[in-house]
């Protein structure tokens, strides 16, 4: 802890806020790059970056870089300010690779220029969005409709390989995403991901129309699978910003539902992976078992998904003995049936051969890309927000973090399999130890321009929310960052050198959740310059020519 403070002070950083969960550090434009480098060398890795228009406050634009320092169990928020007439900030991407997307995104939505950025291209917003219109500036209304500009599509061919488009609608993807896979015969030589189809203007909506108590519900609708973890993450960010203590019983109820959600999400993933491998019997069995988890969610919250259970300061509904018993009974059945299913599936050579030694992500690459969650744990990295930055009731509970060293699809499979049973064990502890008392803090003051960071371990990995509060129960800036945002860049690494037929299983193995990621949108171009958009038909026609 002292070390990291010394590093910050030696590199001209000024610690403004010191919180149990995070440090807010102000740094001038000249020194940001050096400080970022020093922190990276001290073991912090890049989590996310947030641009903010703070002209109504002081006439400046600000960029917040959020770094995760696991050793001291703190997030470090670097704040860099720049005046309106001189919108330039030195890019820290040359020092930390992970800042690439965050800086490009800040440029897209706010118009901040990052000097020295290696690829300063448009990243988010639809293709037909006009230049020079920045939606997250405060003078842009959240419901303003911008006239689209028609843009000519660039077609660049690749000489050595056939370009195979996968998406935006494809039977193996249940969300609109676009992968370009470059194949030479049957072998994949490169891949490119293009998103942005699910960009819904969430952050602007939250700042423009909603109040602090309405945002939890929109946060939950970031994602229909792991929505509750976003809801909790937002609530924790606001609670950290205003210094609110949540009642212990509410913490336990939150933990209970987070784990229920993790179980349903993981079983769903197993079903999808079996389906992608062509093993539909497994898919049907997994989803049949999952119905029991959905039933317990309905008993506990009233809805199968999108629980709507939390607000800033606590949870909305209590649970009683009857619900407890029903949940435990259902989970015991789930535990037994999942054990049987896993035993049966891993005894099948056909399945094992399809996932063993496929989609390799070496440990050092995994660390440099900064993957999170089961993808990192499948590559031998022991990381889990529940242990590293304890939140909710995890600090009172006992659980293991499964880590596997295989670096392949099988390892990621096994990590998730173990996590299901760990989650069931956690829920048993929660229901056993749950204390009595209040479930909600009703009254609290919201200070103006207070900064907060919240993090949770979503089923897919580390989920980080950043909040700046505002007067009148509003939020000045809110930025959620979903785990898939960090995991997607690893897909091209995994795909290279594999067979085309394995591509769906490999893409599926990171458990991609695009709607989470695309509230902001990303384009990853691992190969640099190739841009091809069109149908499969076009690709074949051009190949024939």
């Amino acid at each position, binding site marked *: 802890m002292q070390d990291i403070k010394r590093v910050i002070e030696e590199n001209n950083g000024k610690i403004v806020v010191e919180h149990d969960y995070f440090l807010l550090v102000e740094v001038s434009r000249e020194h940001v790059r050096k400080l970022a480098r020093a922190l990276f060398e001290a073991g912090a890795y890049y989590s996310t970056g947030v641009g903010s228009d703070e002209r109504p406050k002081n006439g400046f634009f600000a960029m917040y870089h959020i770094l995760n320092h696991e050793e001291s169990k703190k997030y470090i928020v670097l704040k860099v300010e720049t005046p309106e007439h001189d919108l330039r900030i030195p890019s820290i991407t040359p020092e930390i690779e992970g800042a690439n997307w965050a800086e490009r995104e800040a440029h897209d939505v706010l118009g901040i220029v990052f000097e020295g950025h290696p690829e300063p291209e448009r990243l988010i*917003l*639809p*293709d*037909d969005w006009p230049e020079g219109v920045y*939606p997250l500036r405060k003078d*842009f209304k*959240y*419901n*303003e*409709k*911008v006239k*689209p500009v028609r843009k000519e599509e660039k077609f660049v061919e690749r000489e050595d390989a056939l370009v195979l488009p996968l998406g*935006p*609608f*494809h*039977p193996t993807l*249940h*969300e*609109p995403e676009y992968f370009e896979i470059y194949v030479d015969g049957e072998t994949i030589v490169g891949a490119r991901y293009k998103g*942005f*189809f*699910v*960009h*819904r*203007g*969430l952050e*602007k*909506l939250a700042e423009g*129309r909603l109040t602090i108590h309405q945002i939890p*519900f*929109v946060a939950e*609708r*970031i*994602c*229909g*699978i792991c*929505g509750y973890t976003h809801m909790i993450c937002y609530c924790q960010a606001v609670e950290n910003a205003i210094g609110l203590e949540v009642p212990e019983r509410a913490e336990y109820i939150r933990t209970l539902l987070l784990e229920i959600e993790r179980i349903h999400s993981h079983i*769903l993933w197993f*079903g999808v992976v079996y389906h992608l491998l062509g093993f539909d019997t497994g*898919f*049907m069995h997994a*989803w*049949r078992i999952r*119905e029991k988890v*959905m039933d317990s969610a309905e008993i506990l919250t009233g809805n*199968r*998904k*999108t629980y709507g259970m939390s607000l800033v300061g606590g949870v909305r509904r209590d649970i009683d003995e009857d619900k407890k018993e029903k949940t435990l009974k259902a989970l015991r059945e789930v535990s037994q049936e999942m054990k049987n299913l896993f035993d049966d599936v891993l005894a099948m050579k056909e399945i094992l051969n399809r996932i063993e030694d496929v989609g390799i992500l070496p440990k050092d690459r995994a660390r440099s890309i900064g993957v999170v969650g089961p993808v990192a744990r499948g590559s031998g990295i022991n990381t889990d927000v529940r242990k590293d930055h304890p939140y909710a009731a995890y600090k009172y509970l006992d659980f293991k973090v499964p880590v596997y060293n295989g670096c392949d699809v099988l390892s990621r499979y096994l990590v998730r399999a173990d996590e299901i049973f760990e989650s069931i064990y956690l829920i048993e502890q929660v229901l056993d130890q749950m204390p009595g008392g209040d479930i909600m803090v009703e009254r609290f003051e919201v200070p103006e321009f207070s900064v907060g960071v919240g993090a949770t371990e979503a089923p897919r990995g580390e989920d980080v929310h950043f909040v700046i509060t505002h007067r009148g129960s509003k939020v000045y800036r809110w930025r959620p960052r979903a785990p898939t945002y960090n995991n997607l860049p690893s897909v091209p690494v995994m795909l290279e050198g594999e067979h085309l037929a394995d591509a769906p299983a490999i893409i599926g193995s990171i458990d991609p*959740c695009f*709607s989470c990621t695309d509230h902001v949108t990303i384009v990853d171009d691992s190969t640099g310059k190739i841009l091809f958009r069109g149908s499969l038909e076009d690709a074949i026609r051009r190949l024939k020519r």
Partner: protein
Amino acid sequence: MVDVLKKSIWVFHLNSGSCNGCDIEVLDVFTPRPDFERFGVKLVPSPRHADAIALTGPITRAMVPKVVEAIKALPEPKIVLAIGACACGGGIWHDTYVVVGGIDEFYKILKEEYGMDPPTTIYIPGCPAKPEALIYAAGILADIIKQKQRRREDVIREEDEEKRKIETIIREEIGSRHFLPKIIVKRGPREGSV
């Protein structure tokens, strides 16, 4: 509901910027407990093979041309199942800067920019739409269940008729010099409608 569809209905699933909530419920109805395939409903990988499009999400701007392409590819009679609050009316996103805001707004664009008439649409509300609601919609589509909800123009027409009846009764009563007319309003067929 549609006379042509007497047998199995094949559905193409189209996510137009949904949060995944409805999408996994769409998948969920094909799994053992709800088992959509009992009714002959099947997910197909192309709109050209499908009878209906299962559309989820509020339709983001980037998705408009893709949704239009899919609807064009759908054979006649075109049917769209608008699944979830977002698809029905834009949901919580209805007026943000990159969202069209639900299927009705999208049909306006379809009419103005592409000159196409809106296809037959079934609205399935819910956030997310429950499997039960999806099965109910399939029942209506396959003409197994009678539709409880009425079309807006039908409701307006019936209300007008009723008003006219009441007016006639009042006039007759006044004509017969009974000062306290006894009005009986029969609401039979619309009772219980939503």
